[in-house]
Each structure stands twice: as C-alpha cells, then as structure tokens.
C-alpha cells in the first residue's frame, strides 16, 4: 500500500503596509472594496501610538531616576498591541495580557497610572476598575493563557457573545501551559484569540533557540486551529488578522492563532542590558522597520498628517504622561492592613486577624490566656 499524505498545511504571511510605507491596495480594500480602516481612524490610532511611545520612554526614565522599580519597555510593539486591541469591542470582549501590550489595555479602559502603580510596587495597579475587561498584567510566562481559555470557555458555556484575546511572547510558546491552553481551546472550541508577539527575544535567548519550528504560527495546526503569521509592525495586517479571528470566534468557529512578527526595540526590562547579547546591526535593521515610521509615512503621503500634527501629538502625549505620573506618584502608600485583607474574603481567619491586629507573629508580650484563642471563645 503506497504511503499517502495524512495531512498537509501551509502558513500564510500577511503584510498590508510594508516597512517603506507602501500599501497593498487590494488587501487594504478587501473583497468588498471598503477600506479596512477609515482615514480618521488611522490618524487616531497613530496619535495613540505616539502617546504610548512617549509614555513608555518616560516610564523608562522614571526607573532610571529611581522613581519606579523594574519596567519592561513596550517600544517597537505598538502596532501589534494597538492593531489587535482595536479589533476587540471595548466593554464586551476581554484581554488577558502578559506585560508588553500596555497600549491595548489602555484602549480598553485601563487607567494609564495603573501600569505605573504596578511597577511602583503597588498591587492597586492590578485593581481593574469595574467595566474594564482585562486581567492584570501577568509576570510568570505563559500561565495566563489558561486563564484566558477558561474565561472564553465560560462565555461559551454561558452563551455570552464575548471573545477573549490573550497575549504572550515567543518565549512563552516553550511553556507547558501554552500547549495545554491551546489544546483545551481547540478541544472545546472556545471563542479565543491567541496573539503571539514574536519579538525575537526572550530576555537573551533568541527565537531559534526556543523552538526548531519554522514559524510559531504552525504550532497552532497541531491543535486544530486556524493560524496566520502577520507583519506585527504593520498596524493594518495585525488589525485585519484579529478582525478575521474575531469574526470566526463570534460565529462559533472557535479559537484562532496569530503570530505577529515584531521586535523588542528596547531591553527586556530596565534590569537588562541587551547589548550583552544582541548584534547592534540586527537592532539597527529593525529600527527601520519601526511600526510608527511606516504609519506616519502612510499618513503623510496622503496629506493626513503634517509635521505640525506630529509636534502637537507629541506635546499632548507629554502633557498626558506627566498627568499620569502625577496621579501615580501622589497616591498615598497603601494601608498595611492591605497585606492581610485580601488573602481571603471576609471575615479573616482568627490567626490571620491576630497577625493583622498586632503586626506581630510572635506571641510573647500578648495576654497568654488569650493567645491561640480567638476573641469569641477566649
């Protein structure tokens, strides 16, 4: 019996706006002839990129000047975060992030000072306001993808028309939880978008040391999931792929996978020095593929953005960032009761309550007839 082909697959790569700002008109217009994004929307999204780039660079300086702890810069990945975030419905769909897509969270209503609070060592930065549909940024790698899968599964079981998007990097695809999440999502056909920000580096380990797989996108095939690789620095390609995945998820088509090929233009975090392991030529090459350069050129070529627009946008961004920093820096230190009050729902177990009341773990010096006995029985 001859060997027959049991399965074969190909991975599409989507780019609509190349690094020189040249647009693929056919892809931008699509089959229905309608532009993918209206001019005014593109202007707004570019303006939002400016805000996020300036916020990000200012956050870096805050750490360097000792006003904030470790911070992971988002620089260079704005198109991936904003293009995908724009395809999700604010107040309806959910974002389950890692930590390099601040701008997507801000788009969906997370107050900008929350992110600063988080990196200033204050859990209140994770206290997501009611009505903002995101989970807090997730520090361990890849664990959040399972939460996203469960959340999307809950929406499916409860017959709610909501889609979840979860963000992670190329390094996260080596974690077991990545594969378990992909497997559950595929098996139960949950309305979920796996959005991989392949920024080429997991701290100092390059993409080709993470996996022998030619693309990251192809990993999704093993989980029975539609998948695509896109130019992650192309706002239009990212938006289009996410919009398509959204439509599939809402139509009962289950999860989708998007590999956004991008680049971490900054260090891993402020505690890192990427010069130790990256070739400066590589960084230089990616700098010219910066998502903002090509989008500004696109707008300028169509007389939608002038140098004066740029100056004003930067000025607004600096003013807004200054306000956000002021908000974060003027919030009073949390009460030390906060250490105890959220371990469990009220009431606190007696021993925890005793530790809270005394701010002590030792018992000498306290009424010996009471130690170990809660107030009600002592």
């Amino acid at each position, binding site marked *: 019996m001859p060997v027959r082909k049991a399965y074969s697959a190909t991975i599409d790569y989507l780019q609509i706006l190349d690094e020189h700002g040249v647009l693929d008109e056919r892809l931008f217009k699509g089959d229905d002839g309608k532009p993918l994004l209206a001019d005014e929307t593109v202007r707004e999204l570019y303006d939002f990129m400016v805000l996020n780039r300036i916020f990000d660079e200012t956050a870096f300086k805050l750490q360097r000047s000792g006003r904030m702890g470790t911070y992971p810069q988002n620089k260079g990945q704005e198109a991936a975060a904003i293009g995908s975030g724009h395809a999700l419905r604010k107040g309806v769909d959910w974002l389950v992030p890692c930590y390099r897509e601040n701008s997507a969270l801000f788009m969906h209503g997370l107050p900008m000072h929350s992110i600063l609070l988080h990196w200033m060592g204050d859990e209140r930065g994770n206290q997501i306001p009611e009505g903002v549909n995101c989970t807090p940024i997730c520090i361990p790698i890849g664990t959040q993808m399972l*939460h996203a899968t469960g959340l999307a599964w809950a929406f499916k079981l409860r017959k709610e028309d909501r889609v979840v998007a979860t963000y992670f990097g190329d390094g996260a695809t080596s974690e077991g939880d990545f594969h378990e999440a992909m497997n559950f999502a595929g098996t139960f056909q949950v309305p979920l978008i796996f959005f991989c920000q392949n920024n080429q580096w997991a701290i100092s380990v390059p993409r080709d040391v993470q996996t022998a797989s030619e693309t990251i996108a192809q990993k999704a095939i093993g989980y029975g999931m539609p998948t695509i690789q896109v130019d992650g620095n192309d706002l239009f390609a990212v938006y289009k792929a996410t919009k398509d995945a959204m439509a599939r998820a809402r139509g009962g088509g289950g999860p989708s996978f998007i590999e956004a090929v991008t680049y971490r233009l900054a260090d891993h975090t402020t505690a890192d020095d990427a010069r130790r392991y990256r070739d400066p030529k590589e960084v230089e090459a990616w700098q010219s593929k910066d998502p903002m350069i090509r989008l500004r050129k696109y707008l300028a070529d169509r007389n939608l953005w002038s140098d004066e627009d740029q100056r004003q946008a930067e000025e607004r961004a600096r003013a807004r960032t200054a306000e956000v920093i002021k908000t974060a820096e003027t919030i009073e230190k949390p009460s030390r009761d906060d250490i105890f009050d959220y371990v469990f729902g009220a009431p606190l177990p007696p021993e925890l309550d005793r530790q809270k009341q005394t701010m002590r773990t030792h018992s000498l010096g306290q009424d010996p007839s009471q130690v170990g006995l809660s107030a009600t029985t002592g």
Partner: protein
Amino acid sequence: MPRTAVMNEKGLTLVDAINEALAQEMERDERVVCLGEDVGLNGGVFRVTEGLQKLFGPDRVIDTPLSESGILGTSIGLAMGGLRPVPEIQFEGFLGPAYDQIVNHAARFRTRTRGAITIPLTIRVPVGGGIHAPELHSDSPEAIYTHSPGIKVVMPCTPYDAKGLLVAAIRDPDPVIFFEPKRVYRSFRERIPEEEYVIPIGQAKVVTEGTDLTLVSWGASVFQCLEALDGLPEDVSVELIDLRTINPLDRDAIVQSVRKTGRCVVVHEAVKTAGMGAEISSIVQESCFLHLSAPVQRVCGFDTMMPYYKLELDYLPDAPRIREAIEQTLAY
C-alpha cells in the same frame, strides 16, 4: 439523585456523600460545573461523579484532556467568567503539574487585584495511602498547600462531614482544596441527612471527649486513632480531635483541649519534618506552655518517600504506634 435502597437502609459511604453533595449543589446553583479526567461518562476513577453527567449534561460535567495544569488553569478562567468550577485531580500525586496554577494564580488573584478578581474554586483530590495503589497515588501533601497563603485546605473523613464541608467549599468565595481520604471512600456507611447542610470550614470536631491527653488527627488516620484508643486501659481518658479543616486551622479547639489535658499527640500520614504536626506542636507550646505535663509527640509518616504498597502499612501510622506514643506521653 434519589438514594438507593442500600443508602436508605445502611447509610452512605464517603463516595456517596460527596456525590450527593455535588448533585445537590449543581441542582441548587447552575454556575457549579465539574470537570476533570474521566469525571463525565465514566463517573471518575473512584466513581465519585457517577451519574452526574447524565443528570446535568456534558456542559456541566466535563471530560477534559489529560492535563492537570490545563484543568486548574482553565478552572481559574471559568471562575473569572462567573462559574463555580469543581475540578477533580485524579490523585494527589498528580497535583504537581497544577501546583503553579493553584499557588501562584488561584490563591493570589484576590490579593494581587485587591479584590477585583476572585476565584471561587473547589479542587477535589483523593488523598493518602492504604489502598494498595501504584506509585504517586498515596501521598499526603496537605501541609504544602497550607504553607501557601490564599488556599483553604479541607480533609474530612466521615460521610457526614464530607457532605457538609463540600457544600461549604463550593459556596466559599475562595479556592479550597478538598482532600478526600481514599482509604475511607468505601470503608463504612453512615446515616446522614438527605437535605443539604453546611459545616463551616475551619472548625475541628471533638470525636471523643477526654481529660488525660489530646490526640489530634485528620483524614484516614482518625480511624487508626480510634483503633488505638480501643486498646487503651479503661481508666485512660483521651480527647480525640478531628481537625477536618487544615487551613485555616482551628487553633482554639487544640489549645482549649490541651490546656485541659496537658498532654498532646499529633497523628498524620504526611512526612514528619515540616508537617502539620510541627505547626500544631508549636501552637501548643506557644499557647499552652504552663499547662503542659509532657512534650508534644508526633506519630507521622517517615521523612522518606511513601513506599510502594508492600510496605505502605509499615509507613502509615497504625494503632500500635499511636498507642505507644499515647502511653509514653502519659507516663512522662
């Protein structure tokens, strides 16, 4: 689910009681879902979820892929999405892959979001040795999870307690690990109310009252303690406390009893060093120092791997070892 003739006549096993509690909670609250490996069609490897899928359908009693971190991680998401998941991990030895999701995620969400996101979650796990099971099917990891803040740890050993505590766990707003001592899954029957009732988490139970010595235990070891008491002279009066909940620990129950008896022996299956016995000894010396007539003794599993089953009864605390510790503590 209607009770069978045997249940009506002789009472319920631990398995029956847990099954009944699950069915009644699922009936009461449509947000409650069971999930795990083989829990659906097959009713679980110990048949604890038997018949539930037929009653509530495959969307509420869900067979999952073989993936412990997957089961726990998605349960966290299900809880975020408004459900009350009751995942089963087939044996305590398989908690390892899910450990990160339990202690670093389920346990921490309330604190790290300052109450914005909470995770009501009941993790059912068969626990402990004594049933001639293969490797990694017989451990007692309750101290490990008690050492992690934000998780309640429950281990009932009677059908009555199991039903009431499981109802409490499912209604609790936070993650609870519900350990089910498999050695007593079917070892006896007990008549228990058919209607639902709640036993609050965090309350120990005095099994036998006494004045000479306090014996503290939980899980299947409670029955080894009872056997040990049977062999003691009639004039020895031992107070046996079944903790039922490991975290939060009912310190009051322990302290009150030891202040009365002045002597304490702790019995558990888990490894001795850094086990719950160490914590209880420490509580006793902190709070009962001037009441003590003897050092606190621990009768535990050894600081070794749980052996394969040919030697498991040599490892597990049994009545003679417990009795010896009681006698020596009384004679001190």
